[in-house]
């Protein structure tokens, strides 16, 4: 109660407040208007089944509503109200009054058809009846005898209308206008107002001398958006008009040769084109020689002084006279009379006579039948007439002249823009746009005829301007128009871009621009959007898909269950004669020409179904009551009822059927599984897979969470150890699902923990491919641990993918039992079943097997063989082996690439475990490369080995020794020679004579050897040994050889220190390894060169102005040299600067007078030793500095070098 009271208070307050109450009222008005005012959004009354009733022929007593004003127009919603409108027009022309038609109106529920031979037909519920002319009675037979079957409504028609009628895009069906008494017959007698948005279908206007569909005469009228369909026919026997009169011709002089004169009758000139019969009659008298004189009219000889001549051409009546008499002869004509029968019949589809009228969007679909002049839109035009965006699709028939748009225009101005004709014109004189032109001014723009008919007649008197308009008549091209073939003219892009027939896009765009009205369909000329909608009277319904058009851009529609289709009539009261179906399995749409040629159309009578898988396009052929045929088609309908084909495949097996109890396949390597699936009909939608440790049934797979499935790309890789099943799921585009599974993949086995060259792990080789020499060793350790059931009768084998060469020693260390075994390959025979291991399977890789039971245990006196063990303990099977493959004893071998050695386990010859392949390291074994043995080589590099050591003098010679191991390489990979593993480099020094005889260390008492600052001494074998680093690292040693003055007791001559590097076996050389050696020359001489030699020079400035400068030299301390010798060279300073002390050698002989003995290379022998002089020629010297270099020799032994400088100025 309290709430109600508050509500009342609130309402009272609101209404007391004027502003609030006005606001609310305004809001309510806006809402009401928004509801009541129709929008263009529903202007296309498509697929709306008519709900109004058929007119019962009774006159309503009022309009539905309205007062006739613009804001409150009279609304007409029924046939009775339309008849009331007709009734009211008897008394008023409704000038400035507004009408609207608020509903589709059905005046007759059957279809009216005019057949020139059979008369008027009435098609009702599929039955054709025959209507007696000018009556409402219809009969069963064309003879129309007996009792009529029924009656139809004859609409009375409308008198003059000067108001405004908006049809609001409603359609009047079954309008039947007929009258035997009227000369002018039409729906409206005259319109001086506006008619818009009104469509007529199933209309028949029959009768009158002049007939027109909508209005007999329009003056100062506006028509917009009118579609008229049905038939318009004038009386079958037109009313003929008799015209007669008298005329006079002057007497004719006759001469003695034939004279032809034309008889001119001005009174009949205007009837030249519409007379049916014509004749002239009269009397004549020959004044003169009657017998000698003849007279003919149109070549008919006149006799008996009177004539009655029929005329065929009113413009050409000839009279010929002749006399053979020479007397003057004259013919007198009297009682002359003409008699004409005229046909003025004018039949037009929509407007009879149009004067000062504007037409926009007017479409004639009606078939027109007339006896004289027939046309589609306008019969006779006069004044200013403007027609835009209008066309004819009806058939225009006439016995004399027919036109697609306008029958005739006498005078005035006619504007045609975006108009065309595509209806068939059947007449002796046919024109696409205008039939008859007199003197009018005509402007034609963006227009065409699509029926290979000329558009307008050639009339010189008229002022006709043609812009951008086209003809399809190739035989007789009117040069005012541009010729295009019919297919070219039907091209929508051309019409849109060149002729400005703007394409209808959608309602919103159309509301903004109503020129966007043209609808295009394949192989057809455009129609406006209303025409298109009204013509779509059948809809092909496939499930929830509806098709109403013929179209070629089809898409796939995938259907999972039987295709059910039906034909729905979208408009009632459009009698359809026949509906036919054709099913095509082609994926491309048939052309209309192809459809025309199909003979096995099936008459549609009820909803149908397609149950057979396949792809279909359903075509529908519709024949309407006017015998017009139209087609429509569906998209490509793909009926897919079956699941995709699905196959799983791998290198070891293929699976094609789902197995609820899958078997097991052992894997020792990763495996690629591929899914192949196909669906010929709908195609594959998606493919997924699942790797599972658990088995599933198909029903369980159906219930699995979709997220568990993985998207399949191109393969599935089994790469993790374990036991798995792969499930595949393929779903086609229709939603059909296929499942498939593989066997269990049992991916388990020995895993190689480590592979290394030699016997020990060496980090130097980590991560590198294994390349070894053919006499090397490699080792790998592998194991296996798995919870499993105890397996009995198992055996083990070592396996290789090549036959191990003779001499190969295999050592097997069982790390579980701590036992060691060995086996040596002693035969090259295939005792290991290598060649027969792959007899049938081409993809099989051969392998040799070396059963463990061949191996002897090491360390036991009786060398027992390996005894098989299942290594099973507490539910776990655990194995751990180290395998050493030793090729060091192999003599003849070859290269092996990608060699594999591993272990396999069998249970009664069935492989149950192998070694996981991706844990294997591939071994590359090289014996030769390019036919050269592949062995590591020791390098020895030493500096300072060229200078001789003078044994009996004081000297110190330092030699840096570097020794390293050079592996050969295959590409970038070192080929490891494991012979050098775990061994050191060694150096040995020995002293030999020139014949390489070893010299006892006793002769080296004046020599000390210091290695890295530590004194070393020769051993009893007269060798000095130096130990280096482990291979393959390099070793650097600094060897200092110190000699002391004194006689060693050796004979003079050349000796050598020889230093070698090698693989050390303690103090000894491993003879199997490479040895490198260098030699250092040693000079043993009795002479003592260890003196300080000087050379005195008495002049060091040569005066360039003197003729000769004698420079004297004196060598000191040379008396002890047995074969002293001096060699001299002269050098000149190359740069005039104290900071660059470079000199270039010059020829000494060029600068001295002395005769010198050349030693080559600008070096000269000085003959005298102790005292000698050089007689310089100063002017040959430059103002520069010079350097003399003297080399002191004892025989061939170079003792010293002395440099002396001088300048020249």
């Amino acid at each position, binding site marked *: 109660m309290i709430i109600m009271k508050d509500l009342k208070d609130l309402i009272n307050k609101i209404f007391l407040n004027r502003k609030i109450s006005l606001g609310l009222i305004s809001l309510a008005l806006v809402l009401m208007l928004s509801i009541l005012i129709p929008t263009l959004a529903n202007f296309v009354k498509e697929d709306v089944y008519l709900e109004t009733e058929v007119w019962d022929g009774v006159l309503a007593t009022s309009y539905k509503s309205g007062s006739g004003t613009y804001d409150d127009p009279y609304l007409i919603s029924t046939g009775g109200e339309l008849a009331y409108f007709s009734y009211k027009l008897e008394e008023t022309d409704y000038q400035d009054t507004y009408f609207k038609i608020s509903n589709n109106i059905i005046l007759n529920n059957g279809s009216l058809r005019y057949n020139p031979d059979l008369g008027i037909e009435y098609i009702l519920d599929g039955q054709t009846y025959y209507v007696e002319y000018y009556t409402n009675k219809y009969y069963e037979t064309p003879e129309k005898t007996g009792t009529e079957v029924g009656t139809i409504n004859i609409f009375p028609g409308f008198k003059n209308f000067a108001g405004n009628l908006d049809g609001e895009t409603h359609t009047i069906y079954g309008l039947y206008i007929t009258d035997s008494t009227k000369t002018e017959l039409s729906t409206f007698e005259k319109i001086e107002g506006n008619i818009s948005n009104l469509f007529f279908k199933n209309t028949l206007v029959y009768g009158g001398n002049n007939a027109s569909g909508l209005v007999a005469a329009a003056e100062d009228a506006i028509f917009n958006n009118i579609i008229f369909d049905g038939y318009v026919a004038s009386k079958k026997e037109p009313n003929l008009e008799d015209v007669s009169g008298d005329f006079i011709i002057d007497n004719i002089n006759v001469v003695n040769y034939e004279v032809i004169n034309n008889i001119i009758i001005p009174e009949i000139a205007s009837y030249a084109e519409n007379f049916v019969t014509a004749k002239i009659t009269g009397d004549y008298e020959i004044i003169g020689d009657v017998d000698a004189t003849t007279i003919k009219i149109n070549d008919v000889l006149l006799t008996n002084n009177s004539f009655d001549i029929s005329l065929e051409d009113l413009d050409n009546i000839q009279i010929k006279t002749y006399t053979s008499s020479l007397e003057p002869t004259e013919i007198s004509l009297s009682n002359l009379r003409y008699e004409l029968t005229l046909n003025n019949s004018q039949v037009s589809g929509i407007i009879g006579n149009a004067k000062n009228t504007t037409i926009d969007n007017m479409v004639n679909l009606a078939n027109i039948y007339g006896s004289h002049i027939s046309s589609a839109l306008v019969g006779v035009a006069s004044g200013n007439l403007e027609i835009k965006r209008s066309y004819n699709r009806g058939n225009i028939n006439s016995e004399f002249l027919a036109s697609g748009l306008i029958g005739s225009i006498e005078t005035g101005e006619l504007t045609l823009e975006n108009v065309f004709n595509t209806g068939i014109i059947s007449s002796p004189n046919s024109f696409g746009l205008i039939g008859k032109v007199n003197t009018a001014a005509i402007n034609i723009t963006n227009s065409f005829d699509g029926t290979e008919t000329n558009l307008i007649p050639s009339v010189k008197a008229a002022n006709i301007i043609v812009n951008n308009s086209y003809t399809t008549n190739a035989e007789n091209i009117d040069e005012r128009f541009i010729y295009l073939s019919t297919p070219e003219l039907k091209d929508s892009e051309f019409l849109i871009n060149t002729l400005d027939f703007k394409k209808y896009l959608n309602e919103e765009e159309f509301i903004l621009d109503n020129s966007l009205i043209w609808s295009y369909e394949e192989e057809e000329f455009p129609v406006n959007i209303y025409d298109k909608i009204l013509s779509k009277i059948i809809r092909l319904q496939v499930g929830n898909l509806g098709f109403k058009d013929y179209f070629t851009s089809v898409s796939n529609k995938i259907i999972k269950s039987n295709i059910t289709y039906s034909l729905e009539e979208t408009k009632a009261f459009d009698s359809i004669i026949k509906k036919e179906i054709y099913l095509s399995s082609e994926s491309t749409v048939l052309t209309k020409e192809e459809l025309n040629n199909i003979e096995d159309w099936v008459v549609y009578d009820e909803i149908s179904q397609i149950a057979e898988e396949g792809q279909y396009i359903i075509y529908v052929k519709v024949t309407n009551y006017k015998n017009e045929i139209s087609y429509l088609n569906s998209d490509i309908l793909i009926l897919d009822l079956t699941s995709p084909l699905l196959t799983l495949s791998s290198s070891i097996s293929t699976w094609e059927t789902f197995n609820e109890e899958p078997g097991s396949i052992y894997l020792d390597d990763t495996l690629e599984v591929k899914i192949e699936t196909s669906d010929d009909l709908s195609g594959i939608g998606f493919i997924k897979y699942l790797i599972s440790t658990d088995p599933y049934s198909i029903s369980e797979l159906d219930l699995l969470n979709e997220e568990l499935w993985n998207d399949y790309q191109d393969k599935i890789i089994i790469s993790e150890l374990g036991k798995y099943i792969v499930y595949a799921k393929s779903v086609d585009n229709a939603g059909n699902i296929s499942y498939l599974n593989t066997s269990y993949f049992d991916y388990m086995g020995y895993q190689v923990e480590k592979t290394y060259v030699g016997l020990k792990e060496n980090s130097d080789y980590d991560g590198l491919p294994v390349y070894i020499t053919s006499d090397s060793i490699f080792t790998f350790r592998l194991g296996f641990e798995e919870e499993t059931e105890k397996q009995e009768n198992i055996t083990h084998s070592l396996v290789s993918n090549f036959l191990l060469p003779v001499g190969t020693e295999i050592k097997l260390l069982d790390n579980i039992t701590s036992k060691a075994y060995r086996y040596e390959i002693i035969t090259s025979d295939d005792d290991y079943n290598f060649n027969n291991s792959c007899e049938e399977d081409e993809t099989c890789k051969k392998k040799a097997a070396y059963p463990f039971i061949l191996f002897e245990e090491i360390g036991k006196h009786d060398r027992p063989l390996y005894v098989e063990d299942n290594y099973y303990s507490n539910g776990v099977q655990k194995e751990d082996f180290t395998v050493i493959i030793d090729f060091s004893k192999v003599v003849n071998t070859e290269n092996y690439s990608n060699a594999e050695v591993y272990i396999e386990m069998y249970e009664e010859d069935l492989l149950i475990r192998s070694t996981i392949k991706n844990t294997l390291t591939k071994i590359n074994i090289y014996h030769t490369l390019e036919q050269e043995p592949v062995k590591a080589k020791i390098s020895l590099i030493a500096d300072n080995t060229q200078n001789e050591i003078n044994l009996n003098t004081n000297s110190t010679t330092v030699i840096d020794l570097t020794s390293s191991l050079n592996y050969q390489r295959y590409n970038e990979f070192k080929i490891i020679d494991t012979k050098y593993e775990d061994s050191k480099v060694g150096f040995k020094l020995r002293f030999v004579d020139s014949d390489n005889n070893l010299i006892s260390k006793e002769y080296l008492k004046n020599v000390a050897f210091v290695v890295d600052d530590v004194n070393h001494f020769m051993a009893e074998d007269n060798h000095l040994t130096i130990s280096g680093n482990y291979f393959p690292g390099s070793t650097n040693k600094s060897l200092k050889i110190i000699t002391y003055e004194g006689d060693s007791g050796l004979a003079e001559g050349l000796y050598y220190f020889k230093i070698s590097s090698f693989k050390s076996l303690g103090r000894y050389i491993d003879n199997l390894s490479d040895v490198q050696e260098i030699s250092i020359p040693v000079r043993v001489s009795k002479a003592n060169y260890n003196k300080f030699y000087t050379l005195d020079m008495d002049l*060091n400035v040569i005066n360039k102005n003197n003729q000769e400068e004698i420079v004297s030299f004196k060598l000191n301390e040379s008396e002890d040299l047995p074969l002293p010798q001096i060699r001299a060279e002269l050098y000149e300073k190359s740069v*005039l*600067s*104290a*900071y660059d002390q470079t000199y270039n050698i010059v020829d000494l002989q060029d600068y001295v007078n002395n005769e010198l003995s050349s030693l080559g290379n600008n070096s000269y022998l000085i003959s005298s030793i102790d005292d000698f002089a050089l007689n310089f020629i100063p002017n040959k010297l430059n*103002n520069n500095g010079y350097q003399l270099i003297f080399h002191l020799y004892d025989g061939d032994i170079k003792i010293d070098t002395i440099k*002396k*400088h001088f*300048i020249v*100025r």
Partner: protein
Amino acid sequence: MRKKIIIILGIALMIIFATGITYSIFNSNASLTTTNQNIAKFIFDVEEENNINLPLQNLIPGESEEYLFKVSSTSSDVSSDVNISYQIIIKTYHFIPLDIKLYQEIDGDKVLVLTCDETYSRNDGNELVCNTPENELMYGEDYTHDYNLEVSFPAEYNDESYIGLVDYLNLEIKSWQTL
């Protein structure tokens, strides 16, 4: 008498300056040692000698030699009664990397007159020619200008290639009367 004096002075100056070319040759037997060398001083008395052979020997890296000489307008017998301008020119091949600097002693201070290095140009005989600015001996006074030529062999040039190099140093004095 006055004329005689002028004539005698002129002859003396001609003898002293025009022909007063003294050159020194030093034979540097540089060793690779860097032992500190004693600095020897020599008096170059242009009033007494026309040609002086300087006893230079064994200049080695790290050593310096100093040559002292005077330029005077007086002699024991004659003196000039006009102003005399002069310029000292040093010529050398500079094949030894010597630092050559000429100082003038003024009121007990050494004023650097010239550093002769390879920035100077060479003449047609490939000699490096270093000219001092012009100097002037005033008339009527018994003036003597004392100069000190310092020649040093930088210690860093101790490479074997610098052993036994031969070079020379020539001093030339140009003079003329000024009124």
